[in-house]
């Protein structure tokens, strides 16, 4: 096999593994005040934003990297990373999609995210983030007619400072944990969405993250505010090229739902998981937190985690408003040497709050998977309810599946129920499917999809199809 064939062979496993050859503008390597000022400067940020970053950086210097998680990783040298990398053609912001670097358009086309006109049929507004900058946001005019603001966060800082100032850091404060604080100091771009009072967002909003440059950490920040009585469904997708080194991705996502508002946040995470021997891949250390601030508000997280060498994240809900609802649906699949430590936190503060957690974990190969969750019903959260179900499926005896729930109930009028099971695909089921003419792989795919169905149902249509395929691909070669 010559190298080209080999490359194609390699790409079969992870079809988004190509990299785009594009000229970059980078910040100097390392992490210090100058780099933060550089980022702030290049984004032409106002002073308050720079102060926010510097304050976070001050705090960051005092924090210690946590080490309680299950998947261990070699120490990250934070001084050996680039904290900003952007395609050179983005230095002067293009006015419209037509001015956008064709190479970028090509990249997104290859990823199946057409940014140009034909995409309109799709009816999804996309904000495309390439390394550290947002390269394009579609459908902005249509949305703005309804008063919806959907733009890169760097633009929002300039055009809507009152909103950003009010909400940025209100759910994930700059004094939060190590990675969140790092993000607060160096975040580069991300999406901002604001849905005004009483508006139901007519289309799915979506962000597509792509890490391209090597040796770069991606630190994006997403802020979604749903004002009273509004509704929004938000999708997030991510891919990265295949590289031998591990790359860090430490994003912060903040959701705020005011009275009667609902936010639905779906993620299909397909970062490069590393090769079969566990070399390379993304470290996905993301902080996602939603605040149900108002009465009757609802936040729902749905995630399909198939990529990354290490996934370490807990999308959480703080149920502060009375009658608010938090939901968490998750599928996490690990194969080869992937590791995942994921789950959620449901913090019940308001009265009559409800939360539901459905988590499905599948581990194969040499991988290791942990569900870690917290349900905390405070003494004031009367009449609250939680239901948790976490099921794990193991394929082979070289992998591990773990469940570590923390359950705290301080209110006698509230109920918590938790269930967990661990099992394998039963021989009978396999036999039954194979008898009816399915190959072993197809049979496993079918059974696994059935196992995940409860969660896949929660995804918006377009995503559900993609996710279903992804589930199949991720497990290829894990049986037999």
């Amino acid at each position: 096999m010559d190298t080209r064939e080999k490359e194609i062979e390699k790409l079969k496993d992870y079809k988004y593994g190509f990299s785009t050859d594009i000229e970059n503008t980078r910040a100097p390597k390392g992490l210090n005040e100058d780099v933060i000022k550089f980022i702030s400067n290049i984004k032409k940020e106002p002073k308050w934003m720079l102060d926010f970053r510097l304050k976070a950086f001050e705090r960051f210097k005092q924090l210690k990297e946590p080490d309680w998680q299950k998947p261990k990783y070699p120490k990250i040298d934070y001084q050996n990373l680039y904290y900003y990398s952007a395609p050179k053609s983005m230095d002067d912001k293009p006015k419209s999609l037509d001015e956008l670097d064709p190479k970028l358009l090509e990249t997104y086309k290859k990823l199946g995210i057409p940014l140009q006109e034909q995409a309109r049929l799709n009816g999804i507004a996309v904000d495309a983030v390439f390394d550290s900058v947002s390269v394009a946001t579609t459908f902005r005019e249509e949305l703005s007619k309804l008063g919806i603001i959907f733009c890169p966060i760097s633009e929002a800082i300039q055009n809507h400072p009152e909103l950003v100032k009010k909400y940025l850091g209100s759910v994930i404060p700059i004094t939060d944990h190590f990675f969140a604080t790092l993000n607060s100091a160096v975040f580069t771009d991300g999406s901002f969405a604001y849905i005004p009072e009483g508006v139901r967002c007519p289309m799915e909003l979506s962000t597509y993250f792509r890490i391209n440059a090597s040796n770069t950490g991606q630190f994006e920040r997403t802020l979604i505010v749903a004002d009273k009585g509004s509704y929004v469904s938000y999708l997030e997708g991510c891919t990265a090229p295949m590289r031998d080194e591990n790359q860090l991705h430490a994003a912060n996502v903040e959701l705020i739902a005011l009275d009667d508002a609902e936010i639905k946040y779906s993620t299909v995470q397909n970062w490069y998981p590393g090769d079969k021997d566990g070399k390379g891949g993304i470290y996905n250390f993301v902080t996602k937190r939603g605040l149900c601030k108002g009465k009757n508000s609802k936040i729902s997280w749905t995630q399909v985690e198939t990529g990354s060498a290490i996934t370490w994240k807990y999308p959480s809900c703080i149920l502060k408003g009375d009658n608010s609802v938090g939901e968490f649906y998750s599928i996490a699949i690990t194969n080869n040497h992937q590791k995942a430590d994921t789950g959620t936190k449901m913090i019940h503060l308001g009265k009559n709050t409800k939360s539901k957690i459905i988590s499905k974990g599948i581990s194969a190969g040499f991988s290791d998977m942990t569900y870690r969750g917290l349900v905390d019903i405070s003494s004031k959260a009367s009449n609250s309810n939680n239901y948790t179900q976490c099921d794990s499926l193991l394929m082979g005896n070289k992998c591990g599946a773990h469940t570590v729930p923390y359950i705290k109930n301080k209110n006698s009028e509230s109920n918590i129920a938790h269930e967990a099971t661990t099992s394998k695909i039963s021989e009978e089921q396999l036999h039954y499917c194979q008898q009816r003419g399915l190959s072993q792989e197809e049979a496993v795919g079918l059974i696994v999809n059935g196992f995940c169905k409860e969660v896949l149902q929660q995804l918006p249509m377009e995503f559900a199809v993609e996710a279903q395929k992804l589930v199949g691909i991720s497990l290829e070669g894990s049986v037999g």
Partner: protein
Amino acid sequence: MKEQLQKDFDNTIENLSLSQKDIEIKKFYLDNFISRGFPNRREEDWKFSDLNQIIKKNIGTLSFYSDYMSTNKVDTSVFVDGLEHNKIVFINGRIEKIDFDYEKKDQIEIIDQSETINKFNNNNSLSDLNNAFTNKSFKILVKRGYQLAKPLIIYHTTNSKIWSKNINLRLNFELDKGSSLRLIDLFNETSEKNFLNIFYSFDLKENAVLKNYKIDKFENKNIKYSFNNIEQEKNSISETFILSSGSNFCKNEINCNLKGKYSSAFINGIFSLSKDRHHEIRTTINHLTENTKSYQLVKSVLDDSSKAVYQGKIFVNSEAQKTDGYQLSKAILLNEASEFNAKPELEIYADDVKCSHGSSSGSLNEDSIFYLMSRGLNYQQSRELLINGFLLDVIEKITDSEIKNLIKNMIGVKE
């Protein structure tokens, strides 16, 4: 605390006739304890129960020296009536009586092990403390094939002679092939504000059966930590029942290693708490080989501002195929101020296993109360009936009928 420890340690050593080597070993553990102190909430296993704070709040300064020279009078009134049994009596931490009257003398051996220090599968600082300060430890060996005719009751009695003291106990049991032992730990205390630190180890050989009942029923103001390590070989069975109710603070830890095929472990527990008591059960079941089984059931009824914690872990390593592990915890919170925390944990590395856990907590079911009241019971009666039924479920799991009845009578659960 450091000077106190050092001083008390020197005093303790003086009274014991130990070899230089043993003193060195004890010193090593003392230094370990001094550098680590009492466990606090920064340690994962003590996340819900910060012992350091609890001791500070309830006792203040502890003294670690106990005078084991003088004997205490055994008060026979505490002995259990209506059940013939063998006895070991601890008074204020000193062994006063070992009596196996009902058994064949040559089948049970009691070995004085004061001079050997055993390692425990426990890396918290309390094992260091125990190693440094225990004065006498005995090993009870049940010989091959011998099944004790009567249960053994271990009385832990303290009286008002001691105050703010730390008491360290240790017993080792070895059950040889095919032997069996029924054991009841009975706490009966009239003292206040002492910290009991109890370590048991059980070694179960092939086909051995251990039934281990721990009863902390009588109200007292002491703080207790009890650690049981159970090693199990082929076909052995261990059954542990914990009634956690009387002490101010009590943490029971059970560590069970299922090393032999077809070995099984059962752990059942009841928390029945009121006032501001704070109790915890932490279990770790290690399934280390094929075809092993474990079953755990813990139920809690919490009143006033009491707090119960259940941390249960099932570990299955990659060789332990065909493991069957089950764990369930249920709690009823009767009062606004009561609190229940649970951390049921699964750590699994084998694929052909059946493991599950469940946990629920909430209030008494109003519908059930309504049902009973509509049939003529008053509110109080309905409530009692429901709680009785809730707890009876666990008591019914006790396989020894004599002891089951004893425990039923003790906590006044009616059928």
